């Protein structure tokens, strides 16, 4: 048994985040605009999982880089997603020990809260820079993100265990 623990399989973390980006920009608005508007925030959910599972390796820097990439990908002001992702990932990283041992229900509610917080700061930042966001569906993504959280959590945990990412 190898007792020395080294950071390994970085590519797993990065490719799951990339997969999140692909899910984020899949062309849904062609079929239903509402569906595109309430699409879960996949990349940051995946980052949350890795913050929870491997807080020593994935943390604020990863969240920030993910945010910058998402800003570029979705055409928002550079730095907005980075800001909200860092703030919410901070909560995740700071309290990972408590969140990790809590039940799936309370984890889901934590994620709901975090995404709502993310949406709130995002709304504040976009309106501070003279852009409007219309409609209540804006908040819908928080609910769908929470619904998708157990799926992402168990899915990524399986991947992590199968590939032995530590």
């Amino acid at each position, binding site marked *: 048994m190898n*007792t020395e623990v080294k950071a390994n399989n970085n590519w797993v973390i990065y490719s799951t985040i990339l997969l999140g980006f692909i899910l984020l920009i*899949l062309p*849904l608005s062609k079929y239903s605009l509402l569906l595109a508007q309430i699409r879960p925030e996949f990349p940051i959910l995946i980052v949350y999982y890795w913050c929870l599972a491997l807080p*020593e390796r994935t943390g604020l*820097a990863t969240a920030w880089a993910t945010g910058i990439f998402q800003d570029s*990908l979705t055409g928002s002001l*550079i*730095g*907005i997603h980075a800001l909200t992702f860092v703030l919410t990932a901070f909560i995740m990283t700071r309290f990972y020990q408590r969140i990790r041992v809590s039940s799936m229900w309370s984890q889901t509610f934590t994620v709901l809260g975090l995404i709502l917080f993310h949406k709130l700061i995002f709304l504040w930042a976009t309106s501070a820079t003279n852009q409007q966001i219309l409609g209540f569906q*804006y908040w819908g993504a928080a609910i769908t993100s929470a619904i998708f959280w157990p799926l992402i959590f168990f899915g990524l945990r399986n991947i992590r265990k199968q590939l032995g990412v530590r």
Partner: protein
Amino acid sequence: MPAGVLSGILSESIGRVHQGRVLRRFTIKLIFTSGPSIIARLLVLVALSLVLIMLDYHFDSFEKVRSALGIATYPVRQVVNAPAEAREYIANSIKSRSELLKTIEEQRTQLTLQKYQLQKLESLKAENIRLRSSLRSSFDISDFVTIGKIINVDLDPFKHHVLINKGNRDNVSINQPILSSEGVIGQTVHVSWKSSEIVLISDPSHAIPVRVNRTGLRSIAIGTGTTTRLELPYIPTNTDIAVGDLLETSGMGGRFPAGYPVARITEVTNDPGQPFAVVTAEPIAKLDQVVEVLLVWRDQQDALKEKKCCACTSDKKQADTQ
């Protein structure tokens, strides 16, 4: 090596005593406590994000950074776009011969008809330039276009932005007008190496200077966030404007060349209690179904070479016509 194993076993047993969980986290946390604290990292990254937001919001030159980031995101967009392209390719390659022949025949008929219309246009154009030159005003009609395609990816769903497959490489510049075969659809906002982002005229943050084709009344058409609706604000109630009137670009502001169709008036409500009429219009181009777009340059040199100055184009033309 034995020492390492020993310390590993030792630390693991200590870890069990302390936390009831495997110790590896304990050892790794020890390594990480030597780095900057999490609060410090948070503050640095938040400050960095805020600085980036400010830079991107206030300085146009930051566009270069965005353009560079666009190169990094390009592969992801390509991956997402690939299935749609593959589907189109397959659909094209399995079309039957008779079907293709039929399409060719249809397009040939259409081309002949359009050539016929162009014959008349040429003489009208010449006449117009002659008349305008007698009035000593310039008339800019020669625009150059390139065809681009929409990339099948979603951007921010709360903005009306789409991505096209032409960028810096094809001399696309910021604020360049974009048309479809039917009418104006928007202008470029961010340009990257091989792709650029365009804002549609229906985006709530977009306004386009227009003129009513029938009367010459000038106004502005503002996006509403719905692809089938534009609003014309501040139209007095006694203005001659009617349902069905065609709105075309007025050329005011200098971004959109004059004379391209934009929208058709769908509703005019005159409420005597209100100072202004409520006027809405529907874009002529099907904004949510556009597949191919036309990028417009004022001048062939702009289309071929990198060139910034737009005002000099019309001056030159004025000199030519006089």
